[in-house]
């Protein structure tokens, strides 16, 4: 699963720590999410999208 977390987060001048605190997870989880090494639950995906002021489908996508 690919995502645009890092791209959008940088545009919003947010740190990984900021996103982690707002979404209620550890910073390491945001690191793994950005690297595409962890597929989040629907709830976390929604929380991250909300924090980054976007939608889940714009944030996460499958690359074929």
């Amino acid at each position, binding site marked *: 699963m690919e995502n645009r977390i890092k791209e959008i987060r940088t545009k919003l001048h947010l740190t990984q720590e900021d996103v982690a605190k707002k979404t*209620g*997870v*550890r910073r*390491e*989880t945001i690191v*793994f999410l950005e690297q595409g090494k962890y597929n*989040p639950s629907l709830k*976390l995906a929604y929380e991250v999208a909300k924090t980054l002021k976007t939608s889940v489908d714009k944030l996460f996508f499958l690359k074929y």
Partner: protein
Amino acid sequence: MTIKKYKYIRLIVISFLAILVSQSIIFRNYLLPIIGIVLSSSLLFYLRSKLKNEFLADERDYKIGGDAARWAIQIFNTFAVIVMIILYAQQDLNPSFLPIATTLAYSVCFLMILYSLIFRYLDKATFAKNRKLYIIIGIVLILMVAFSGLKLFSAEDNWICQNGQWVQHGHPAFPAPSVACTK
């Protein structure tokens, strides 16, 4: 309270508890570690409640924890079954092989049943459908453990400490304890 401070205190508490448990075993005092475990758990529980806006674990940790637990159970069961078979087969070489093999067999069975029950319980839909069956299995499991415990700790077929010597009572399947008999 920060997460770093909490982890530091937790390390100290666990270290202290480890020392307490090891010393209690040496001095054969079983009340102290129980009090220690209760006190340290309460302290850590209280400190954890003081962690505001800090996350000790999240969904990724729980997922990894679940995978690690499943792996650990599978590795332990495989290893225990192999060792158990070897010990049962070689019980003539050393009389202590039999109780070790029996303990391993019971441990594996207990772990597997407990895992299945917890799995089914967490899988609530299935649990609700077969609720009676799982309650019956749970009762049988508790009775099995209680029976095993009674058999293990009863004076029947055991070694009894009398006048500074280990005296055989019944037909124990294991050798006399290696610790000194002081009664």
